[in-house]
């Protein structure tokens, strides 16, 4: 099995990147690199990549479109950050609208469930009609009414939770 690394690898890489390889290097290091398979490979790869890197760095300076200046980057980042902050500031409001709409629906359901017993006589005629049209539908309606009556406390708790949630969210998310 071939060795995966060699203790001389950092030295060789430093010599190649520092343009000291091979002439300005210690003769023993050169001799080692010739004998060591890992170091030979490191020299080959590092020399290629270093050459490519140097060439690319030179090419940056000669590009038609130069790199943006530090000032441009700073300025764009500042504007971008400000836009993001503004967006973040309006986020609780959007959440608030959404939660308020959910609360309105929940309150409506809670109200209807509370008033349902007193509304039942008014819908007596309708219930009769429903009974006549579909006994199955009538039994389903009765089942829903019975469930709502039995779980009135839960319905009220859910409604209260939904009312309190937007207030709590607003207080938690507002910045000031």
């Amino acid at each position: 099995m071939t060795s995966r690394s060699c203790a001389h690898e950092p030295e060789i890489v430093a010599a190649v990147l520092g343009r000291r390889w091979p002439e300005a290097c210690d003769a023993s290091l050169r001799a080692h690199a010739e004998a060591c398979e890992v170091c030979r490979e490191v020299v080959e790869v590092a020399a290629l990549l270093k050459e490519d890197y140097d060439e690319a760095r030179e090419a940056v300076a000669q590009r038609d479109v130069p790199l943006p200046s530090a000032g441009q980057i700073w300025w764009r980042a500042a504007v971008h950050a400000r836009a993001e902050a503004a967006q973040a500031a309006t986020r609780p409001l959007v959440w608030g609208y959404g939660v308020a709409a959910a609360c309105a629906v929940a309150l409506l359901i809670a109200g209807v469930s509370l008033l349902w017993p007193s509304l039942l006589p008014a819908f007596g005629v309708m219930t009769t009609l429903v009974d006549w049209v579909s006994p199955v539908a009538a039994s389903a309606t009765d089942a829903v009414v019975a469930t709502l009556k039995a779980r009135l406390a839960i319905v009220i708790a859910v409604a209260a939770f939904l009312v309190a949630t937007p207030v709590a969210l607003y207080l938690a998310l507002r910045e000031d």
Partner: protein
Amino acid sequence: MSGLVLSELERLAALEEAERTFPMNEEEFRAFYELTSRPVWVYLTRMTGDSRLADDLLQEAYYRLLRTKATFESEDHRRNYLYRIATNLVHDQRRRPRADREPLVDAERQPAPDSLTGSESRAARRIDLARAMARMKPRERSMLWLAYAHGCSHEEIAEVLGLKTSSLKALLHRARRRLAGFMTPAGEGETR
């Protein structure tokens, strides 16, 4: 005119806010940018194979660096963090499906006809390298570039790529072998 005054006010407000919220002031940023922007751009270009995309990613990388809440023990630490951001941006970019994705061998790297007359073998070697790098896995490309173009230590590479230092030696060895294999004529047919 009033629009001009307003935008000027907004500009000042944005700059004031930047000085307050960014983890370094503008002077520090300028110095850091001058030191790092070219190597980072070259890194992005070589990792994406697209110099225009590298322009965009460069700006995004510095923006993310300015917006980070992380604290840095040294300039080297900050630089490594920047490379980490750049690496993640490249990986995100590659995960994104793009019908118009360009090949990894950048058009700017193709030698001009007159450069071929000057140093044909060097130009040919660079193209071979570009092709070989294009066949490597993204993480291997980053690893090799950081190790042998930038001379980063194993610890630094592990930090940038989010790897364990202990496993880096083996991964780097494998990547180096693969690249060397692709660079030789016998490695042309190699796929893994």
